C-alpha cells in the first residue's frame, strides 16, 4: 500500500476531543470513586488498597482527556484521491480503509453543537454497506471535501 494518506484533521479536533473525552470519562470517575468509597467505608480495607479503583479511574480520565486525543489526532489521516477515499485511524488498533468513489451513494456534512463552537464539521459518505466518516474538519474544508467527493462520485464509470 502507498504511504500514509496526505491530509490531517483540523488541529482544533484535539481540544474538542479532550472535552468530549473528559465528559465521557466522568461516569467512569464517579464509578471509581463510588467503588473506593464502598471498599473503604463498608469493607474496611486499608487506605492504600481501597483507593485503587479511584486511582485507576483517575489515570484513565487523565489519559482520555489529555494523551489519547493527541495520539488519535496524530494517527488520523485521510486523502480523497480520484478513485478512492483513503482513511487511517485508531490509537491501538490502527485501521486503514479504502472506499472506492464508485461505491459512494451520497455525502453529507454534519456538525453538532459542540463542533459548531469550534467551527468543525464531519463529512459522512454512505455506501450500500453503511457510512464512513471523516470527523473534525474545519467547516470550509469539510464543505470542500463533501463537494469534491460528490463531484468525483459522479465521474466514476467503473463499476
Amino acid at each position, binding site marked *: 500500500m502507498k504511504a500514509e494518506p496526505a491530509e490531517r484533521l483540523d488541529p482544533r479536533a484535539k481540544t474538542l476531543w479532550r472535552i468530549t473525552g473528559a465528559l465521557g470519562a466522568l461516569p467512569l470517575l464517579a464509578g471509581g470513586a463510588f467503588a473506593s468509597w464502598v471498599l473503604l467505608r463498608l469493607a474496611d480495607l486499608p487506605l492504600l488498597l481501597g483507593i485503587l479503583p479511584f486511582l485507576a479511574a483517575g489515570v484513565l480520565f487523565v489519559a482520555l482527556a489529555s494523551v489519547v486525543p493527541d495520539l488519535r489526532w496524530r494517527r488520523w489521516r485521510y486523502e480523497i484521491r480520484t478513485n478512492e477515499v483513503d482513511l487511517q485511524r485508531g490509537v491501538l488498533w490502527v485501521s486503514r480503509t479504502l472506499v*472506492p468513489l464508485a461505491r459512494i451513494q451520497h455525502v453529507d456534512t454534519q456538525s453538532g453543537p459542540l463542533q459548531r463552537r469550534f467551527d468543525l464539521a464531519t463529512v459522512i459518505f454512505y455506501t450500500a454497506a453503511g457510512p464512513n466518516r471523516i470527523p473534525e474538519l474545519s467547516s470550509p474544508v469539510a464543505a470542500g471535501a463533501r463537494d469534491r467527493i460528490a463531484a468525483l462520485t459522479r465521474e466514476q464509470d467503473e463499476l
Partner: protein
Amino acid sequence: MSSEPRHLHPAAMLIDAIKSIRRSLSAFVIPGVAFLASRGFDARTIVLVLLGALVVAVLGAVWGFLSWRATTYEVAGGAFRLRQGVVQKNERTIPLDHVQSVDTVQGLIQRLFGVVEVRVETAGGGASEPDASLAALERADAEALRREIEGSRRGPVEAEEGPAVLRRLGRRELLVAGATSGQIGVALSLIAVASQLFDNVLSEDLAQRLVETLAPRSVTAVLLIVLALGLLAWILAIGGTVLAYTGFTLSRDGEFLYIRRGLLERREATIPLARIQAVRVVEGLLRQPLGLASLRVESAGYGEDAGVSTTLFPLLPRKEAQGLLLDAAPEFAVAPPLNPLPRRALRRYVFRSTAPTLFLIFAAAPASFVVFDLAWGLAALLLVLPAAFYGWLRYRDAGWALEGDRLIVRSRLLTRTTAIAPRRRLQWRATVRSPLQRRAHLATFQAQVASGGGGKELRVTDLGSEAAETLVYDLRPGARPRAR
C-alpha cells in the same frame, strides 16, 4: 401492456374476513369470557355469547366482501397500481423498475383454495411489511402478473419455456438437514420458555406434587432428563427444518433465480442475479464430518440499499456446491486453492482462543486455593487444551484467494464459511492492526459487501502484513483481473 383493473380471487374475502375477525378477537374474548363466568354458564348467557360471535362473524364476512370489491390491481403505464380501502380509499402506485421482487406465499387458507398471496416488494419498504400484498390470486394470474412486472426489466421475452429446475431437496436430505441444522440451541430455549409458561399455568399445588414425583433422585435421573430434553429439542429442530424447507426447489430463468419451499406455508421468492453481492458456502459443525454444506446469498435491494441474506440451498454435498453455483450463479462458481496464513499467525490464533480460559483460571485461582483443593485449579488447566485445539483449527481453516476479480475468503467460527464476492461488490476494504499484530508483522483484512442491516463482512484475521496490503491494492477500482 396496459390492462383492466382486476379483482382478486374471491378467496380473498374469506382471508380478509378472518384477518379482521382475528384483529377484533382480542377485544371480544376477554369480555366474553368474563361475561360467561359472571353469569355462571347458564343456557341464556351461552346463547347470548354465541349470538355475539355470530354477529362478529357476519360483520367480518360483510367487511371481507366490501374490501374485496374495493381492491383492484393493474399494471399500466409502466407502474403497478393497487387500489384498496372500503371507507378510506387508498391508491398505491409503484413504478415497475422500483420493484425489487415479486414473491408468492401460500398460507393454509390459500392452499385450501389453490390460490397464492403475491407480495410486491420495493427496496424502500421495510423488511417485514411488503409494499403491496395481494391476498389471493389464482396461480396463473400470479404468474401473469409476475411476467408483466418483471417483463419490463427482462427485455425481450424469452421466458416462455419457464424456469429450469436446478436442484430439488430430497426427503432424505431434508431430514439430514434438520438433524444437522445445529438449531438445537434455539429449540432448547423454546422449551425453556414453554416450561416457564407451564409453571405459570399450573397451580402451585399441582406443580409441587409434580416436582415431588419427578424430582431427580440421582445423577442418572438428571442425566436422563437432560438427555430427554436434548432429544426433544433435536426433534423440534428437525420439525422446524421440515416446515421451512420441504420441497425446496431452486430454479433459474435467465437472470432470475426462483426459490420455492415450505410444508404448510409455501413460499416462492425471486432473486435477480444482478442483485447478488456475495455467496457463502456454510459448513455447519455437524455437517463437516458428513461433507455437507449449505449455500447462502447476500443480495441487495433496489438502489443497492436494503437487502437480505437468504438460503440459496439448504443442504448439499460440499463437492456439488461448485456445480450448482455454476448453474445458478456462475460468477460465484470459483474454488481456487486458498493461500494459507503465515506460520507465525498460529501463535496469535492459539493465544486468542486460550486467552479467555487462561484469564478465567488466573482470576479464579486465588478463589480455588481458598475454597477448593489445588486439584480443581489444575483440572481447569485441562480446558486450555481444547481451546488451543480450537485455535489451531481456526488457523488451519482460514485462507484467502483472488481469482480473476473475485475475492474468496474462508474462516471458521464453529461453522466453516467460504465467502465469494466479486471486486465490484466490495463497498470498502480495510486493514486493521492491533499492537500485538504489528509486532508480529500481521494484519487483519476486512472487506464489506452490501446486505440486509448495513452489510456483511469478509474477514481474514492475521494475514501477513504485506499480503494484506497487496490484497487491498489488488482490489482497487479499475485493477486488471490478475492471473493467478
